[in-house]
């Protein structure tokens, strides 16, 4: 059990704003990166990350330590991401909203760097195209290192389903990557 996280949540539940700030500092970058990879847009990711923390603050008093604090926080993030994706689908703006070339302009990089840069851009773009649960499972596993049980708690699916989601996500990404390398 994540004891220090639990202590922070307890303190936040009692209205301790300093504890809230500590919690934000602890999880802000891992959360932002998870959300960013999930939604593929930096500004949306920042807004959603902020919303995650506000929800944590508002529901801290009701937190029951059945799962780790980090699992609970990522579950809130996942639910908000799903809502965001649903909203985007409704607006049919998913493709337009993807902000792919926000890091470095390719013309300032060496040919080798361009290749790596393009590969990373391809990976980000391809990730966003994976089915939502597959994408979430893959990000939680590969970039956060969560166990299958923790992922199952966050996504609300069984452990064998997590295994299957990860298998299919990796298989699909590998196929797309192989196609990209052949081009």
């Amino acid at each position, binding site marked *: 059990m994540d004891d220090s996280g639990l202590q922070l949540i307890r303190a936040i539940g009692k209205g301790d704003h300093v504890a*809230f700030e500590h919690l934000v*500092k602890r999880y802000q*970058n891992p959360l932002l990166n998870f959300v960013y*990879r999930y939604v593929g847009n930096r500004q949306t990711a920042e807004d959603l990350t902020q919303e995650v923390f506000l929800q944590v603050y508002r529901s801290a008093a009701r937190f029951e330590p059945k799962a780790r604090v980090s699992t609970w926080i990522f579950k809130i993030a996942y639910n908000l991401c799903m809502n965001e994706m649903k909203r985007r689908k409704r607006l049919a703006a998913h493709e337009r909203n993807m902000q792919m070339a926000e890091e470095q302009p390719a013309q300032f990089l060496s040919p080798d760097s361009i290749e790596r840069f393009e590969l990373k851009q391809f990976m980000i773009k391809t990730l966003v195209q994976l089915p939502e649960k597959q994408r979430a499972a893959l990000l939680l596993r590969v970039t956060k290192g969560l166990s*299958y049980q923790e992922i199952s708690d966050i996504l609300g699916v069984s452990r064998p389903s997590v295994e299957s989601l990860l298998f299919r996500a990796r298989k699909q990404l*590998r196929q797309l990557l192989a196609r990209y390398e052949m081009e």
Partner: protein
Amino acid sequence: MRCQEVESKISAFMDDELDSGVRQTIEIHLDSCGGCLEQLEGLRKLDGLLQKLPRVHVAPEFAEKLALEVRTEAAAIEKSPFGRLGFLNGLLTLAHDFFDLLERPKSPSTNTLDEFNDFPPLSMGYIYCRLLKQCGGE
């Protein structure tokens, strides 16, 4: 174990999420199957690429801004008549009014109690209305 079965388990194998028995069976298979070993290497490469994707960072003042926002939110709740203290005060007012009503002598000169002879239902309504009015007036 056949290649097809190994393929379906290789992702979990890489994540070290298999029972020791299944894991051992796959290890034996990988010792003699180049195709499956290549698959495993491919998956490892893929995970490596995902881990190397550029990371983003929040603005330095992110936590402070957010803490300020929740402080403002908490302050607004405190001020609200239905906020923690406001709600408590409301309950206290309700109790006070209730006992006040019971204790107050019923004089024809007052226009508060005569109409509530059928106490308690209407008088409770009266108190409730007064309370709401008080809350609304703030």
